C-alpha cells in the first residue's frame, strides 16, 4: 500500500508539505504587509531599485517575501502531487474541490503578479504577454485582472488583496486551521531566513538583453517559442484545470491514466524549465551554461551577502542613469574626460563595465565587472548591447582583423598543409600543426580578439584589444591620472580615457608596421637590419628596437591624410560577411576619389543609419549635402562633399579640406594601359626581402600568442636582405578580366620543420609573390622604362637587362645580380625565369600570377622601342591609342625583338 510522502516527511521532520506551504504563505503575507511601506506602485521599479541598493533591512524583508512565496509554490505543488498519487481527491467535497482547483490558478496569479510588480524589463514584458493571452477572453478580462497598461494599481490590489484573500480562505477551509502549526512555522521561517541571507533577491538590469519569465514559467516560455497560436497553449491549460476538476468523478482507470500523463508532462516541463534557465542566452540563443557570461557562479551569488552589511548612514541620493538607479556613480562621482556620447552622466558606468548597479558595497558592486570593456570576448555584453553598437560588434567578429583568415590559409599553404591558399578560418580556432604553431608563435598577437589586459594607452607595442585597439584615446590628463593612480590607488581614477571615432594612425601602427609594413611605408620609413640607431637624423628607432631609414612618404601622408580618411568602417570593422583575404574585404579604390567621370554620390537623406549617425557626430551633415560612394559596395565616404562634378575630402581628424583631383590625361589615354591599376604606376617603392628562413627550435622557449602561455620550442625567422625598390608587377584576375597590380615577395623562403614533432623532414622552399598595396603613392607615376625595361618590374629580379641589336632585329639579354637558388635554379630575388612562364605555385593568391611569356614579350617589345624613343615622344604616345598601328608604321631603322 502506498504511503504519503508527506507522512514520511512528517515522521522525519515533524511536518507535511501542506503545512510547510501554509506556513510559507503566512510568512509571505506578513513580510508582504511589511513591504507595503517601501513599495511605491506609482514608481515601482525605482522604489525597488532604491530598496535593493540602499536599504539592506528592507531588502532582507523583500527577500523573505520572495523566498517564502517560492517555498509556498513548491510545497503546494508537492502537496498536490502527493494527494493525486494517493487518489485522496475522492475524499474532498465537490465544492471544496472546485475552490481548490481555482486556488491553483490563484496561486500562479499571485506569484506571477509579484513578478510583474517588480516592473523591471522582465516584469514589463511578462505583463504584455499575460495581457495578450488574456485578450483571448476579451479585452475586459485582461483589463479586469491587469488594469490599464500604463500603471500597476490593479495588479497590485489583486496581488495584496483579491488573490491573497481568496487563497487564505481556501487554505483555511482546506487545512481546517486558522494558524499554521507553530513548529512547522518555526522551521519554515528558519529555512526562508537562511535562503534569503545567502541568496539576496536582486532586480533585472534594463540593459541586460536576456529576458526570461519567472522560473516556473520558463518552461512555458520554451513551449511558446514553437507555438504560433498562443491560444492553443491557453486552451490546453484550461483543459488541464478542467481535467483536475473532474478527476474525483472519473473512473479509477481513467483517473490513473490522466495522472500518468500529467506526471509525464510535468517531467517534460521540468526539463524545458532547466533548458530555459541554464541553456538560453540573449534572444533565446542556445548557450552552454559555462559559456554564458550572464550566468553567475555560486561564489558570486554568495557574495551577495555582503550587500546586507554595507554602511549606509550617509546615503541620501543615488543618481538615475538611463532610467535606473546606478550605485556606481555614488562612489565614482562623475569622472571626467569622456566624450559626450560616452559620458558617465549620460550612460553611467555599468553600461560598459557591467558589475552590479544595485549595491553600494564595493566588492559586491565590482562582482562580474569588466575592467577593460571592448575586448571582443565581452564586446556583445559591453559595447555591443542593444542600446549601443550591436551591429558593429557582430561585424567586427567576422572581420579579417579578427579572423586573420588569409594569414592562416597562406601560412598553411606555405607549410604544404593545404593545397591552395584559400578558405574561411578563424585564428582563434587553429590547431597545433607546424603551420599553426608558427602562427601562434609569430603572428597571432595581432589578432584583434587578443585581450587587452592593461589599462594603458595604445602604442607601437600594442596588439589586439578589440574595440580599444582603435577607439581608446588617452589625452595627457588621463595618462597622468593613470600614472598617479598606479602610485596611489586610494585616490581613484577621476579622469577617464576617451573613446573616440577620431582614430589616429598610431592605433594602426603596432600591427601594420609588420608584414607588408604599410604603416611604415605610408610615413616614408623603411626597415633596416641595423640593431642600433646611428647618429643620423634620417633614421628612427621604434619601441621594439627596429631601426628605420627614410625613403619617401606617400603623397596622401604628405598632405596630412590619416588611414581612416580613406578606409571606411565597413573595410576596417568588416561588413558582416566573412572573407578569405584582405583584398576581398577592401572597398576603397583610387578611382572612388580620383575619377574622370561625374562622381557617384548619395544625399544626406539617403545615408544608412550608421553613416547618418557618424556624419551627425562629426558635424558633416548639412542639409542637401551629397557624399561620394565607392564603386565597390556603394559605401558612402562620409568625409567627402560633392558639388556638381567636383568633390572634396575633409580630413576626419584635421578637418582640412582637400579638393579631389581627377586622374591625369595620360592615365586614361587610349587602351594600352586600360588593365593597369593606378598603383602600378604611382607606387614609388615597396619593401621587399629575399633569402628568408624559418626554422623550429625545440630547445628554445616560445610564446603562444593566442593563449598567452610560454611554450617549449618555438619558431624563429631570419631575413636575408631588405630592399626598398619599385615593386614587381603581375596580374590579378582570370581570362575574362585582369588587372595589372603591384607585387612584392610574399616569401622567398626556406622552411625547416624537421625538428617540429611530426614535421616534414625535407626542407620546404617557397617562392610566392603577393599582390600588395605598398601605400607609397607618389603624385608622379613611374617612367615607361621603369616597367618596360626593368627586370625587377617584370619579375626576373635585380640585374642588367639589355637590348642587343643584331642585323635587322634585336634580342633581350638578362644578367642577374643574384646567384641561382639551389631549390629551383632561379636568381634568389626572381619571381620567374627570364622570358619563361612562371612555375606554379607562384603566388599567395589563387587568382594572382606573374606575366606569362606572351605578356612579357609584349611588354619588352614596347621596351625595345623605348631604347630609342622617349616615353613622351609622339610615337610612344600614339602607341597608347593603338600600338599595332604604330608597329605597322615602323621605319627601317627600327629593330624589333626577334
Amino acid at each position, binding site marked *: 500500500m502506498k504511503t504519503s510522502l508527506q507522512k514520511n516527511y512528517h515522521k522525519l521532520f515533524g511536518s507535511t508539505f501542506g503545512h510547510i506551504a501554509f506556513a510559507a504563505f503566512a510568512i509571505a503575507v506578513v513580510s508582504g504587509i511589511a513591504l507595503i511601506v517601501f513599495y511605491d506602485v506609482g514608481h515601482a521599479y525605482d522604489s525597488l531599485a532604491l530598496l535593493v541598493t540602499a536599504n539592506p533591512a528592507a531588502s532582507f524583508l523583500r527577500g523573505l517575501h520572495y523566498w517564502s512565496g517560492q517555498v509556498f509554490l513548491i510545497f503546494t505543488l508537492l502537496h498536490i502531487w502527493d494527494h493525486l498519487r494517493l487518489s485522496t481527491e475522492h475524499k474532498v467535497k465537490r465544492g471544496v474541490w472546485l475552490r481548490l482547483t481555482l486556488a491553483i490558478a490563484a496561486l500562479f496569479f499571485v506569484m506571477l503578479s509579484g513578478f510583474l510588480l517588480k516592473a523591471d524589463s522582465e516584469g514589463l*514584458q511578462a505583463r*504584455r504577454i499575460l495581457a495578450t493571452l488574456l485578450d483571448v477572453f476579451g479585452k*475586459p478580462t485582461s483589463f479586469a485582472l491587469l488594469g490599464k497598461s500604463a500603471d500597476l494599481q490593479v495588479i497590485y490590489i489583486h496581488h495584496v488583496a483579491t488573490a491573497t484573500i481568496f487563497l487564505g480562505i481556501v487554505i483555511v477551509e482546506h487545512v481546517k486551521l486558522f494558524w499554521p502549526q507553530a513548529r512547522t512555522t518555526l522551521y519554515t521561517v528558519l529555512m526562508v531566513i537562511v535562503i534569503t541571507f545567502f541568496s539576496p533577491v536582486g532586480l533585472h538590469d534594463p540593459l541586460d538583453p536576456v*529576458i526570461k519569465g519567472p522560473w516556473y514559467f520558463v518552461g512555458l*516560455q520554451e513551449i511558446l517559442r514553437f507555438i504560433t497560436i498562443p491560444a492553443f497553449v491557453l486552451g490546453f491549460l484550461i483543459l488541464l484545470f478542467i481535467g483536475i476538476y473532474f478527476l474525483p468523478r472519473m473512473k479509477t482507470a481513467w483517473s490513473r491514466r490522466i495522472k500518468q500523463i500529467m506526471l509525464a508532462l510535468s517531467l517534460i516541463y521540468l526539463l524545458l524549465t532547466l533548458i530555459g534557465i541554464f541553456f538560453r542566452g540573449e*534572444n533565446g540563443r542556445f548557450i552552454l551554461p559555462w559559456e554564458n557570461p550572464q550566468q553567475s557562479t555560486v561564489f558570486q551569488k554568495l557574495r551577495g551577502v555582503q550587500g546586507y552589511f554595507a554602511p549606509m548612514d550617509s546615503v541620501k541620493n543615488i543618481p538615475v542613469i538611463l532610467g535606473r538607479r546606478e550605485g556606481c556613480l555614488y562612489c565614482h562621482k562623475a569622472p571626467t574626460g569622456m566624450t559626450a556620447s560616452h559620458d558617465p552622466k549620460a550612460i553611467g558606468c555599468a553600461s560598459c563595465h557591467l558589475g552590479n548597479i544595485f549595491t553600494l558595497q564595493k566588492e559586491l558592486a565590482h562582482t562580474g565587472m569588466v575592467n577593460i570593456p571592448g575586448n571582443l570576448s565581452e564586446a556583445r555584453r559591453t559595447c555591443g548591447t542593444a542600446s549601443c553598437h550591436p*551591429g558593429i560588434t557582430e561585424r567586427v567578429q567576422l572581420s579579417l582583423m579578427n579572423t586573420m583568415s588569409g594569414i592562416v590559409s597562406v601560412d598553411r599553404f606555405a607549410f604544404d598543409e593545404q593545397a591552395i591558399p584559400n578558405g574561411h578560418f578563424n585564428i582563434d580556432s587553429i590547431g597545433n600543426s607546424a603551420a599553426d604553431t608558427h602562427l601562434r608563435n609569430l603572428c597571432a598577437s595581432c589578432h584583434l580578439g587578443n585581450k587587452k589586459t592593461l589599462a594603458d594607452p595604445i602604442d607601437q607595442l600594442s596588439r589586439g584589444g578589440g574595440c580599444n585597439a582603435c577607439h581608446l584615446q588617452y589625452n595627457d590628463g588621463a595618462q597622468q591620472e593613470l600614472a598617479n593612480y598606479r602610485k596611489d590607488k586610494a585616490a581613484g581614477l577621476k579622469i577617464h580615457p576617451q573613446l573616440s571615432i577620431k582614430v589616429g594612425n598610431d592605433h594602426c601602427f603596432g600591427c601594420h608596421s609588420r608584414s607588408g609594413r604599410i604603416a611604415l611605408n605610408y610615413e616614408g620609413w623603411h626597415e633596416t637590419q641595423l640593431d642600433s640607431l646611428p647618429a643620423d637624423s634620417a633614421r628612427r628607432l621604434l619601441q621594439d628596437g627596429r631601426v628605420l631609414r627614410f625613403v619617401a612618404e606617400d603623397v596622401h601622408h604628405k598632405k596630412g591624410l590619416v588611414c581612416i580618411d580613406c578606409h571606411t568602417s565597413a573595410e576596417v570593422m568588416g561588413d558582416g560577411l566573412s572573407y578569405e583575404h584582405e583584398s576581398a574585404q577592401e572597398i576603397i579604390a583610387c578611382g572612388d576619389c580620383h575619377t574622370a567621370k561625374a562622381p557617384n554620390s548619395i544625399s544626406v537623406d*539617403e545615408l544608412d543609419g550608421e553613416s547618418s549617425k557618424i556624419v551627425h557626430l562629426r558635424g558633416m551633415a548639412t542639409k542637401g549635402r551629397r557624399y561620394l560612394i565607392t564603386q565597390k559596395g556603394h559605401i558612402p565616404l562620409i568625409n567627402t562633399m560633392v558639388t556638381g562634378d567636383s568633390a572634396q575630402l575633409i580630413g576626419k581628424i584635421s578637418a582640412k579640406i582637400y579638393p579631389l583631383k581627377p586622374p591625369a590625361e595620360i592615365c586614361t589615354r587610349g587602351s594600352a594601359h586600360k588593365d593597369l591599376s593606378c598603383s602600378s604606376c604611382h607606387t614609388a617603392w615597396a619593401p621587399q626581402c629575399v633569402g628568408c628562413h624559418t626554422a623550429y627550435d625545440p630547445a628554445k622557449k616560445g610564446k603562444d600568442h593566442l593563449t598567452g602561455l610560454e611554450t617549449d620550442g618555438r619558431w624563429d625567422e631570419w631575413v636575408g636582405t631588405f630592399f626598398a625598390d619599385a615593386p614587381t608587377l603581375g596580374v590579378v584576375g582570370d581570362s575574362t578580366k585582369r588587372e595589372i597590380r603591384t607585387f612584392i615577395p610574399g616569401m622567398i623562403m626556406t622552411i625547416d620543420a624537421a625538428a617540429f614533432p611530426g614535421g616534414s623532414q625535407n626542407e620546404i622552399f617557397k617562392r610566392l609573390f603577393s599582390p600588395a598595396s605598398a601605400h607609397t603613392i607618389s603624385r608622379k607615376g613611374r617612367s615607361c622604362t621603369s616597367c618596360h625595361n626593368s627586370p625587377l618590374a617584370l619579375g626576373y629580379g635585380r640585374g642588367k637587362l639589355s637590348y642587343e641589336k643584331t642585323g635587322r632585329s634585336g634580342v633581350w639579354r638578362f644578367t642577374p645580380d643574384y646567384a641561382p637558388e639551389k631549390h629551383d635554379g632561379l636568381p634568389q630575388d626572381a619571381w620567374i625565369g627570364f622570358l619563361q612562364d612562371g612555375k606554379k605555385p607562384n603566388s599567395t593568391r589563387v587568382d594572382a600570377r606573374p606575366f606569362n611569356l606572351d605578356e612579357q614579350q609584349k611588354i619588352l617589345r614596347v621596351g625595345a622601342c623605348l631604347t630609342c624613343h622617349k616615353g613622351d615622344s609622339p610615337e610612344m604616345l600614339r602607341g597608347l591609342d593603338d600600338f599595332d598601328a604604330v608597329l605597322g608604321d615602323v621605319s627601317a631603322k627600327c629593330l624589333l625583338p626577334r
Partner: protein
Amino acid sequence: MNEKKYSRRKWFKLSVQMLGLPFLYVWFKAMARENIFSSKKKIYLPKEIPNGVIFLDKVLLSRQGGQVKAFSARCTHLGCIINHQQGDTLICPCHGSKFSPDGEVLSGPASRPLAGLVIRTDPLDARRFVQL
C-alpha cells in the same frame, strides 16, 4: 400559513445565481467605458530619420531608401516589445520571432507582420507623429 424557510447559505447561493450575471454585465460595460478614457498617446518622430531602424518607445521607425514606415514595436506573437536588432533583423527578446525592417515575419513563432502605424502631421507645428 405554510412558510418555506431558507438557510443563510441558500439565500447567498440564490443571490449569486440571480445577481451574478447582471453584476458582471454592468461591470464589463463599465470597463468598456473606462477603456475609452485611455486615449491614445502621440509619439513625435525625430526630424531626421536615417536609413535603418530606430527604436522609439513602443514604436519602430524604419527607413529603407526614401520611405519612412512606422510600426508598433509589439511582437505580433505575444505582445513583447521588440527593442533589439541584429544586422538587418529585428528580434523579439521573449520568444525569438524575427522580423525584417519592413515588418515582415522572417521566422516564427510570430506569424503576422508587425502592425503598421499611420504617420500623421501635426497641423500646428508640422511635426510628424504616430498614435499608439
